[in-house]
């Protein structure tokens, strides 16, 4: 780092106006030296740990690469993809991921927007409620998973003892293939909603008051105000939250890894988890990459479609 500063400063006066041409464009020598040297650390690390993994995973998808014999890799064409489409567990994982997305996104979206709308009105104890809904966000995913895993313990967990207290049937919860994924949906929304609530809240606070007053004078009811004024005013925030939430939901892995290890009977295995298992546990890098490639196409299509629907394709 120091050498950059030294290399640049003594030459500065003479070099400042020096230019060179590359592909018909003219660049300042000084700008190039400083710019490139400032960008260099990020360029090196970014190429190795951001760009290269993408390219590698793209390349390995068409090979039979195994983690322990990476020097002996053979071209496999589309064989991995042919395998993939016949893999029942892959389809189970795909179905689980889609089910998770379809359930958690509306739930969490409604919860966070609803809470934000409530907190945007003048209520007593506003600050208290804001913190209350935000508390789960402070727990890490690992802590959330471990806590709820113990709460939902089928033998001596709190939830079953509450059920018993109210005379309800004890449940198997995470040990029941019909319930496990729904429980993960619930705890994910529970943990995350407070965060998006804050995003919505700051967007709601930015809506100018006078629009509401005008609507009030026109005699619009609350639902009309929400539908015709509030929602369009926070459209960009809404699409941002929706897309980030979707991508997050597509990538679900921590909760099932901690709580169920994908079970029972693969009912909570997700795509990200299956890709991880194939690549890390089974060391089948080629197959894992093929699944990742397939899943990337699905994810990108959905995310880009939603961006297009909201008419803004540079939401970041």
């Amino acid at each position, binding site marked *: 780092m120091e050498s950059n500063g030294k290399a640049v400063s003594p030459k500065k006066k003479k070099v400042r106006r020096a230019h060179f041409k590359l592909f018909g464009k003219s660049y300042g020598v000084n700008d190039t030296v400083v*710019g490139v040297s400032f960008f260099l650390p990020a360029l090196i690390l970014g190429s190795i740990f951001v760009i290269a993994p993408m390219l590698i995973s793209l390349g390995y998808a068409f090979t039979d690469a195994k983690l322990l014999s990476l020097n002996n890799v053979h071209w496999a064409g589309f064989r991995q993809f042919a395998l993939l489409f016949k893999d029942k567990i892959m389809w189970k994982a795909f179905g689980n991921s889609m089910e998770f997305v379809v359930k958690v996104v509306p739930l969490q979206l409604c919860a966070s927007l609803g809470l934000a709308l409530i907190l945007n009105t003048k209520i007593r104890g506003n600050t208290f409620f804001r913190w209350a809904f935000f*508390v789960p966000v402070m727990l890490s995913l690992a802590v959330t998973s471990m806590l709820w895993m113990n709460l939902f313990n089928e033998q001596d967990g*709190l939830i079953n003892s509450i059920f018993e207290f109210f005379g309800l049937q004890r449940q198997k919860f995470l040990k029941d293939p019909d319930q496990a994924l729904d429980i993960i949906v619930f705890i994910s929304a529970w943990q995350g909603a407070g965060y998006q609530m804050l995003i919505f809240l700051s967007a709601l606070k930015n809506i100018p008051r006078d629009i509401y007053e005008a609507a009030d004078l026109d005699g619009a009811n609350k639902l009309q105000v929400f539908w015709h004024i509030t929602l369009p005013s926070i459209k960009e925030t809404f699409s941002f939250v929706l897309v980030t939430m979707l991508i997050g939901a597509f990538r679900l892995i921590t909760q099932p890894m901690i709580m169920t290890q994908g079970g029972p009977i693969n009912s909570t295995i997700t795509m990200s988890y299956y890709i991880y298992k194939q690549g890390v546990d089974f060391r089948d890098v080629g197959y894992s990459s093929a699944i990742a490639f397939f899943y990337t196409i699905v994810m990108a299509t959905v995310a880009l479609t939603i961006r297009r629907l909201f008419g803004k394709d540079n939401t970041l």
Partner: protein
Amino acid sequence: MNKTIKKRKYTAGKITYKILFYLLLFVLCVIFLFPVWWMIVNSFKSQSLIYSDMGGFRTFLPTAPIGEWFISYRLLFVTFKEFGRSILNSVTYAALTISGVLIINSLAGYALSRFVFPGHKLIVSIIILILIVPVETSIVPQYVILFRLGLLKVPVLAYLIPGFVSPFYIFMFRSFFLGIPRELEEAAYIDGCGGLRTFFRIIVPCSLPVFATVGIFTFMGSWNEYIFAQLMFAGHQSMMPLQTYLQIINKYQPQDLSLVLASLTFSTIPIAIVYVLFQRWIVEGVAFGGLK
């Protein structure tokens, strides 16, 4: 006469509405808070007390005498000798990650906001592309690269280095720096300051909000990291950060629920403090993401 009745009816309706509204709020609060409340309260009890209280409302009350509240915490540090170590590890990893992230990404963002060099436009487009198109790279290819570089033998480096660069933070810094008028730096250049000195003397002091936001978000990301840490430190218990070590306590057989709850509670204290102290920055950072 008629008028007063009408008025009273109106207020009665309004009162019921208010009551229902606050009832809803109360229920929501219970849903959001009861697990955390239960976790904290029961971390002050012994395992046998936790289970004997479980059948009734006592489970939500700190029923142990106050002198015994912290027994489970003391036991936690005694039984799991590396728990304290894992906290220290987490703090160290977070500090290193924050320093690396702030230096590398701010310099990169500055380079992209001020200097036109060959490839400049291409880099900006690539960054935007990475941010827009979700790629399921997962950790497998990263694992492969670390494996090939031989870094897996040094788990700490393998764990830390990939986290240093983030297209999102580069972009965040760049957007912020673009808003700083160039005249400020021109004066410094005329005075003979080099690029690096100008950056640290002029740009950094003007950009404390973005540094704070990125720093806090990096802290939260690093503190909460689980999967990658699990992968890198499997079999290296003494190097594990807190989040992965928690699973060792949680999985230990026979499980002692009071120790598990104490460890979960204790591990949340540092990040809760960060949230409380820096809430303004967090809300602003969240809003930044939302407004872009």
